[in-house]
């Protein structure tokens, strides 16, 4: 079985099983520490190297510790039992492997051991990215999904203008918002995809993103996340920007500047809120305090990257409008512009979310960084351990 290069340098000597059934391995220096399971997010105590009591966990947490751990854990999933399951004393239980828990919606996307094995086998040369430009490859690996989504978006943007607008009878009176209704529905699908990208990056999973096959509930959850994060602030900026654009008369340089700022801020804050929520999968984290905490943990580059994302979104928005306009004059050219715009936009967003997610994963306190002192460039847990090897 092939494994990512990096892990070979540091032997993963400690093998144990999380309470959720995930087979985990940790590096030697992680012995007797606490960390978070990348699958279910519960705190786990990593056994010491030479366990005095084979098969038991670390001593139980103090009540205070327990509370903190619970707070930091990924959310109590909608469908799964409450925090009792996260109690650390179950974690290292050795014995028959517990049945996999129902899907944890908060984590959105983490591989099962089965999948992990296949994953690592299929992508031997793709360890978790360590450099930002490596993340550029990520959307390329998901090219089929990106292409399908971008194509759909371009069609749904262009088709109403091409087909419905000339037949005005469909759009008399107040029916016109329906013009782009299919587009919005499809955009929600895209949100689902992007949310998976973010979640898998946050969990530190190598390999490409898988198609959203996990069903409606997961999709709805992702959509809800994106909507809540949008409503938690960016919506206000966007609405303000729209109203200002509509009512400011002729745009001079100052107006352009104000509008650009509003757009960049709206998109940037949306990204940051999404990141904040993805830390623990709690929608309540869509607030400035959680963002500030996250930035404090991961660093200012998070803000810089999010704002850069805003600038890119601004450019793409302009391109989209130009494409729509062109569609009335030269449909071919307009269609090309729209397709290019959505493709590049989706590619860029995928890249950015991967990058931001991996940053959060690696930063101290993220599950990817067990110990601030060791410069780990790889998850302490490798999720590819076949259960047979444990016995």
């Amino acid at each position, binding site marked *: 079985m092939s494994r990512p290069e990096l892990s070979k340098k540091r032997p993963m000597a400690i093998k144990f099983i999380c309470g959720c059934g995930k087979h985990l391995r940790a590096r030697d220096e992680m012995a007797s520490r606490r960390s978070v399971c990348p699958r279910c997010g519960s705190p786990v105590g990593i056994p010491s190297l030479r366990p005095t009591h084979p098969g038991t966990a670390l001593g139980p947490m103090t009540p205070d510790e327990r509370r903190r751990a619970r707070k930091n854990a990924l959310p109590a999933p909608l469908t799964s039992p409450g925090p009792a399951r996260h109690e650390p004393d179950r974690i290292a239980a050795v014995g028959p492997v517990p049945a996999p828990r129902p899907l944890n919606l908060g984590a959105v996307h983490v591989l099962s051991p089965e999948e992990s094995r296949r994953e690592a086998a299929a992508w031997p040369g793709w360890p978790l990215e360590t450099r930002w430009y490596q993340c550029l490859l990520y959307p390329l690996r998901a090219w089929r999904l990106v292409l399908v989504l971008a194509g759909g978006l371009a069609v749904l943007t262009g088709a109403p203008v091409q087909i419905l607008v000339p037949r005005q*009878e469909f759009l008399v009176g107040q029916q016109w918002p329906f013009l782009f209704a299919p587009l919005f529905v499809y955009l929600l699908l895209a949100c689902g995809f992007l949310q998976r990208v973010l979640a898998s990056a946050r969990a530190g999973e190598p390999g490409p993103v898988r198609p959203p096959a996990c069903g409606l509930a997961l999709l709805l959850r992702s959509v809800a996340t994106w909507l809540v994060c949008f409503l938690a602030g960016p919506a206000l900026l966007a609405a303000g920007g729209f109203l200002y654009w509509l*009512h400011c008369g002729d745009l001079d340089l100052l107006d352009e500047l104000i509008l650009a*700022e509003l757009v960049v801020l709206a998109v940037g804050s949306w990204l940051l809120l999404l990141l904040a929520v993805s830390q623990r999968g709690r929608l309540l984290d869509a607030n400035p305090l959680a963002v500030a905490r996250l930035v404090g943990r991961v660093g200012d580059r998070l803000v810089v990257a999010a704002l850069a994302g805003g600038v890119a979104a601004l450019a793409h928005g302009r391109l989209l409008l130009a494409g729509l306009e062109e569609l009335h004059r030269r449909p071919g050219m307009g269609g090309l512009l729209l397709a290019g715009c959505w493709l590049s936009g989706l590619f860029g967003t995928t890249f950015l979310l991967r990058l931001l997610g991996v940053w959060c994963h690696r930063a101290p306190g993220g599950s990817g960084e067990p110990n601030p002192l060791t410069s780990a460039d790889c998850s302490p847990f490798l999720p590819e351990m076949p259960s047979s090897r444990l016995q």
Partner: protein
Amino acid sequence: MKRSRLTWYLLAALLALVPVGVRVLTWKISWSQPVDPAMAQAGEELFNHEWKPEDPLAPDGDGLGPVFNATSCVACHQRGGPGGSGGLESNVTIFTVRNNDGTTRQGVVHARAVRYQETLRHVHPELPAIARPALALLVPLPGREREAIPFPPGVHVSQRNTPALFGAKLIDDLPARVLLAQEKGQRLRWGLAPPESEHLPVGRAPRLTDGRVGKFGWKGQAASLADFVQAACANELGLGNPGHAQPAPLGKPDCRSPGLDLTLEQCDQLTAFVASLPRSVERPPETSRAREDALAGKRLFHAVGCADCHTPDLGPVEGIYSDLLLHRMGQELQGGGSYNGRPVPVPDAEPGEGPLPSEWRTPPLWGVADSAPYLHDGRAATLEEAIRMHGGQGTRSARQFAALNIAAKAQLIAFLTTMRAP
């Protein structure tokens, strides 16, 4: 978070707020000035005054003329009271000629003169020597197509019907950004369709050469009421004023006035009077049955798409039923030339920035029941005819109106007839 980092973030936020702050400080709010009653009263006298050559009210100039269309403002603006609309007999004739060298010549063929009468022959030697052509000579009216005279290539003559002036102050007080918001909204609504569209009801704000947005005139050619009044004094009555010189007769370009006929104050008095005119009103019919019909008609007005252009409210002005934007109204409704202001390119010329021959400002429908005849040259005698003649961007809603059954049509017309002059 470390203190220095916090400082940086605060600094960045402050920097980002600078443009907003500057905008707040420079945001222009045009407060509506109340009309001075004394000025308005003096203006009323001027508006109703019968002007004569060498008029005592114009001591410095030559008074009425040398060429003019009527002897008083109220001679044309009279239906439904002073300031109202005018009939076909008070139409103004406008011409545009494209010379062989590509330049254009445009102006008004004045109906009357003190000495040097203008006729169509002054516009082009092949045209008859008629001073006051009937509308049927210029456009093929239904049933009278044979009367229309042929025009040589490059020559375009059209007429303008006298609109009512009620509520002009409300339009004058509208900031340009209200019109621009309307323009942006219409474009958004039709998937960012450009205003060059010949079919989609997407208008554009009329632009003057100096970049201001026009709000008055059939082509939206004047940005303010004061500007239009000054132009009207000169063009209609031959009263030169500081804002607009009096026109010289077409055959006598060197005919000069000894001085200005009107002072700026007199123009302001006239403007004050026009601004003091009350706005038109929506008067619901007496019987409840008729009221219900009118209400159903109002719903139909929205349903068939009239309200796309005849928007009920424009910014703070309620019940204006216009977006004050230019719309392309199709080949049939073409009319080059301009009453004043920016040249309108002739139909076979390259389109420029100015209004096209087929472009017209949506007329406000308030008071429409009392302002027959309709359309820019009054070619439609009835409301129903006016609707039927909508072409270009208005084609679709006109067609939908035509497809209504007789009762529904009557309801829509009943709604329009609730809009009366004050």
